[in-house]
């Protein structure tokens, strides 16, 4: 239900509490059992509070394996959530998603090239470069595709947002065609890596990976909510927003840059995780107001919480084997999205 101005201050508090709760539960759950007291004890020890309720082995699993993974899940979920909300706001379309600016398919093509040709191309390269090649290629591919979509949507010196949406759809089709071709030339092993990458995984979570991926995502989480007012105005139309003093071109640049940064960083590290960006903003609108000052922060919190839960399912349902997280988010997201659409009527 839409709320009058200035009500429901507590929604963010409830969502934050639920997200933190999900993160704590995720820390305790897994193939290696950790009791809640052990989790809390091991978390507090580095802060100088010794409860002594855990073993060194438990501390190692928690601090070096599980904690970075849960933190990464929350960050990526938050980044995908707000990217979805920013995209739907920018395109003024509740069916828009971050992929429409081209970043996801561009990143996928970049990653696919490395997965298929990497061994040949980087044969003599140092180890560090070979490890970094995939995320670098994905991030670069995402950035290039975004620039291309914007370039295609330039009409008379300005970016036409409606054309950008169509250019994004076309470029996505092109990107997946390119990946299809790459799949033809890939061997079985490469095909398997590619398939897994396309379905996403948070298995690569380490503190050093986080150190690289977290800053761009955090930046988006901090700056994105500042665009709430202009995005509300934009929902009335580009002209109307202009009449209300919004520099629409600048707003478009900022939205696209933030989404490209967030999704680029997320995809580079975790592969393609579908449906989060599409579904999360709808949930945010259902739970709170449709105004962006509510939708943007709520999308961060809901995205973070949901991805933490999805990743916990991914690594516990068939333990010790892992399910691809993108399969879980799509499996849960698609029917849920259909339900939301039907209930809108």
């Amino acid at each position, binding site marked *: *239900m*839409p709320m009058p101005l200035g009500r429901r201050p507590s929604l963010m508090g409830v969502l934050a509490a639920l997200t933190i709760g999900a993160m704590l539960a995720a820390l305790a759950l897994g193939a290696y059992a950790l009791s809640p007291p052990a989790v809390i004890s091991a978390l507090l020890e580095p802060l100088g509070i010794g409860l002594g309720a855990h073993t060194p082995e438990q501390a190692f699993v928690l601090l070096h394996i599980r904690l970075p993974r849960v933190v990464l899940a929350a960050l990526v979920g938050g980044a995908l959530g707000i990217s979805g909300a920013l995209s739907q706001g920018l395109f003024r379309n509740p069916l828009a998603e971050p992929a429409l600016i081209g970043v996801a398919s561009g990143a996928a093509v970049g990653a696919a090239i490395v997965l298929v040709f990497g061994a040949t191309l980087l044969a003599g390269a140092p180890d560090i470069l070979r490890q970094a090649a995939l995320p670098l290629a994905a991030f670069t591919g995402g950035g290039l595709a975004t620039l291309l979509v914007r370039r295609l949507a330039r009409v008379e010196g300005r970016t036409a947002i409606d054309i950008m949406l169509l250019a994004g759809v076309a470029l996505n089709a092109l990107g997946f065609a390119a990946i299809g071709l790459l799949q033809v030339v890939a061997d079985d092993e490469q095909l398997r890596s590619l398939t897994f990458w396309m379905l996403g995984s948070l298995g690569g979570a380490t503190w050093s990976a986080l150190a690289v991926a977290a800053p761009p995502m955090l930046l988006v989480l901090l700056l994105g909510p500042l665009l709430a007012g202009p995005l509300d105005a934009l929902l009335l139309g580009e002209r109307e927003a202009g009449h209300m003093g919004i520099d629409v071109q600048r707003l478009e640049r900022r939205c696209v840059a933030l989404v490209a940064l967030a999704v680029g960083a997320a995809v580079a590290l975790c592969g393609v995780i579908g449906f989060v960006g599409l579904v999360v903003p709808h949930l945010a609108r259902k739970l709170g107001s449709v105004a962006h000052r509510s939708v943007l922060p709520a999308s961060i919190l809901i995205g973070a919480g949901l991805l933490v839960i999805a990743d916990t399912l991914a690594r516990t349902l068939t333990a010790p084997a892992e399910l691809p997280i993108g399969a879980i988010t799509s499996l849960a997201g698609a029917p849920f999205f259909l339900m939301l659409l039907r209930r809108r009527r």
Partner: protein
Amino acid sequence: MSLVARDLTVRRGARTVLDGVDLAVGPGEFVALIGPNGAGKSTLLAAIAGDLEPAGGQILLDGRPLEDWSPRERARRRAVLPQASTLDFPFSVLEVVAMGRTPYGRPGKADAAIARRALALVGLPALAGRPYTRLSGGERQRVHLARVLTQLWDPAFDRRGEGPRGPAPYLMLDEPTASQDLGAQKRVLETARRFADVGGGVLCVLHALDQAARYADRLCLMAGGRITASGPPAAVLTADALEDAFGVPVHIHHPPELDHPLVTAR
């Protein structure tokens, strides 16, 4: 101190849709643009609003070219009501009206109060909490009128004639009475009239000639991308001028109980 179009020319492809138009709206003045479909009324309004790139001429706000104003500065002095707006998200009516406060930064309590007063002014105070998407077309249009009034509230209504007045705000309305019922039409035009009476300038595209005659100080009759007649209603609404513009013979009635003429096609 005025909103001025000087020798404004707009082309669409090879077609000249506005041909060297001169127009000025001053503080306290209600100017109505009238004329047949395709005469260029909405184009002129859009060009003065800064939505179109003119092929020639200039738009001046207080003597300064429009493009020299920053978007926000401009938005605090001038608001535009389009013929229709698209908004597919179920904002509350009050939230939509409060969007008019966008040029003033983060919305606060005072902004919600202004939005409520504007909503009362257009006669829809009871709809504040209603989802915008459930309103009728006419109600939506009035909500947007409240929104543009909210945008210009401070310069227009909070002065109350005390002390030195700030520079006048300008309200631009594109067929604000389309899709309104009889009572709502009156309400909308009275609101615009009041905006002019407190010192603002109004430029309004109107189809109903009797409405234009009743509420406007000055009419600009347009045909073929030019202003063919301009002046007080009685001077512009002549049988000859209207027949030339609309291509049909007209009757002009002066009912004794009204202080403005009525026009019907003969």
